């Protein structure tokens, strides 16, 4: 029983998201799809009729109708779809409502939601304690090649466990990917160790990665990759690798440390969901 929640904002991205969900549904069955929408009426003070002369019935009904229609694009059975509207009050309330629901993961269209600002997705990433799938207009969610970024923590174990069930047929490929930075490279002028040290580290990391994967299902089908970050940020290195290897999805585990209500997400996750990155990213918490 998989329950997904997708954020729609009445933009054109909504339809793209629905088509992507349809794609997703082909490899990975979705049993329930919640369509979440946040009604922002701050600017329309006073009587709504003044602002919308056409408004002759509750705005909720209108939106419900519109969103249901949009949701049909996903090809899902209409009784699997449910529209949830959130209104006024803070976004934090919406997030905590979702956090307490039985939703398994959330889907968020990146570009449209924040119009290039990156503020909203960052906030989402912090406030939602559910796994979030960030997609963009150009993403395809066929999941032929999934990459799980692994740093040997319990969070990356979670990410791996989340990613494994996404493999439903033998065509799909999963890569366990570890990126590291040489301690020597912390001070480029005294590095000295050079190639050899780097190679040796890579070997050790690969062994460790193999061990880490060992317990998992289909462990021997998982491709193992270890890379050295060099001068790039870790996030950029992961992204570049994923791009050049035709990956459809990057899965990252995120530390669940909470500061009051906000989840502190690591810099790598932050880099991966930044606006300039074009691949779907799944943050697992």
């Amino acid at each position, binding site marked *: 029983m998989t329950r997904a929640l997708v954020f729609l904002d009445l933009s054109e991205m909504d339809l793209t998201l629905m088509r992507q969900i349809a794609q997703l549904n082909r490899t990975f069955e979705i049993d329930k799809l919640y369509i979440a929408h946040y009604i922002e009426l701050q600017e329309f003070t006073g009587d709504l009729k003044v602002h919308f002369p056409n408004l002759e019935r509750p705005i909720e009904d209108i939106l419900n109708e519109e969103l249901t229609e949009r949701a049909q694009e996903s090809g899902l059975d209409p009784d699997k779809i449910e529209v949830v509207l959130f209104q006024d009050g803070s976004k934090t309330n919406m997030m905590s409502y979702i956090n307490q629901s039985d939703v398994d993961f959330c889907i968020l269209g990146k570009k449209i939601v924040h119009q*290039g600002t*990156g503020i*909203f997705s960052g906030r989402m990433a912090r406030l939602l304690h559910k796994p979030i799938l960030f997609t963009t207009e150009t993403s395809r969610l066929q999941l032929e090649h999934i990459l799980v970024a692994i740093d040997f923590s319990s969070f990356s174990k979670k990410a791996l466990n989340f990613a494994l069930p996404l493999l439903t047929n033998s065509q799909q490929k999963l890569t366990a990917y570890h990126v590291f930075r040489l301690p020597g490279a912390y001070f480029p002028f005294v590095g000295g160790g050079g190639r050899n040290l780097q190679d040796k580290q890579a070997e050790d990391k690969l062994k460790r990665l193999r061990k880490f994967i060992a317990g998992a299902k289909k462990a021997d089908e998982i491709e193992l990759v270890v890379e050295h970050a060099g001068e790039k940020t870790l996030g950029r290195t992961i992204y570049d690798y994923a791009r050049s290897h035709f990956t459809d999805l990057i899965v990252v585990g995120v530390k669940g440390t909470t500061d009051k209500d906000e989840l502190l997400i690591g810099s790598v996750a932050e880099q991966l969901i930044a606006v300039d990155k074009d691949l779907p990213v799944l943050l697992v918490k």
Partner: protein
Amino acid sequence: MSEKRENKYFDIHKPVFWPASFLIVSFITITLVIGEPMETVFADIQEFISDYGGWFFVLVTNLFLLFCIYLGFSKLGGIRLGGRDAEPEFSTAAWFAMLFSAGMGIGIIFWGVAEPMNHYLNPPVEMGTAKGNALQAMGFSFLHWGLHAWGIYALVGLALGFFAFNKKLPLTIRSVFYPLLGERIHGWIGDVIDIIAVLATLFGLATSLGLGVQQVSSGLNYLFELPDNVTTQVLLIAAITAVATVSVILGIDKGVKKLSELNIRIAAIFLLFVLVVGPTLFIFESYIQNLGYYVQNFFKLSFWTESYTAESKAGWQNGWTVFYWAWWISWSPFVGMFIARVSKGRTVREFITGVLLVPSLLTFLWMTTFGGSGIFLEMSGMANIGEDITSNVSTSLFVLLDAFPLSGIASAIGVVLVINFFVTSSDSGSLVIDSITAGGKLDAPVGQRIFWAITEGAVAAVLLVGGGLTALQTAAITTGLPFAFVLVVMMYSLYKGLNREYALTKAEETKADLSAYESRLKDVIAKRGKSNDKPEK
């Protein structure tokens, strides 16, 4: 020697290149023609500026630092160099390492032993006890090399970085004045600003080169008993400038980059060596205590102006604090441009914290290790090195090393280190000056850089001929003063630019999201608002 290359191909911004070159060449000619009497001229100029302008330097350096700290902690601190989505080009650790290396140079090797020792032997304020004088000596050395120096660089670096990366203006000083002058930065005012920047950088650099060559000469005298006089120094400048020219010809990747990396390694080993053979425990302990003293007396030290000091005893500050402030200001385009180029993708807050703290802490360690060891030897009576140091400051490093094992090798390494720093400073300095005189281009032809490398050497040589250390200090002070005014205006301009950027991004973020949503909502309601259940279209 490489005169032929000069004419090969020039890609210059004429209104800056020619006036700047003309002023520099006339300076060289006048000093050479007048010769010896120039020494008193230099001394008079220095005295005049520091007597009447000293308070101004003290005031503005404090202002620059406070301004930087304000920026770092205000709402403007969140602005990112290179735009909201820019990613740091270098990892934090690599960035720190580069900031470290920006803090290393001839100056710190020259003054590392000499400065604390001098303050200890001639205390600016008599503290009554040796211990008090020693702490005060370290306190003043920290003041001169610490947060204030880096506040100046941070201001220039941040301004250059912001206008180059966020506003896409050329990486040159005039760009910083865009919020005030608008398109006029491309006119004569911009040219004047760049000319001042070129002169300041060149003379600031020449001061450093002059000090370096004095030290190399003293070192060679100590090692091989070569005569330590102006002739040797001028010959050394010629020889080292030739090496620098080769490094220029080889290009950044093969030349200056390799050398700087080598340099930082040698410097690190050198520091470790003295840490080990010197009074190790004392160095660590006093590092902590000196830091505490610096923090505790921060405001007292930084706002002190000798105003209540008796006439006969006054003048200390002119030779030290005022000289340093002017020197740092004068070559702030040099350091500023370097830190700007490696800091793309950092937020203002990260930039300020990193640039103020990282190099300062390293410099403090260096000062404590070298100067502190000197004071330790003097205080404990283990070696009597004070006299030698006060009689000729450029020997101080070698005098100190002499008191420790392996002094021959250590001194040789010291000499190599200074020569190397000379080469890299000259090479990267000519890169900066070249870039300013070429209108902000970074890939100007090599011929021009060779011209500037040679000019720097020539100015340093001429200054040494015309009056030694005094002339060097005068050069820094005289060019520092006009540039200090430029920096004051720069502060305002940067503030304006950052504020506008902040307002813009803020407005963009909320407005764009909200108004786009509203219009979509309106559409939907227009489509389905009517109570007849069917949509209109």
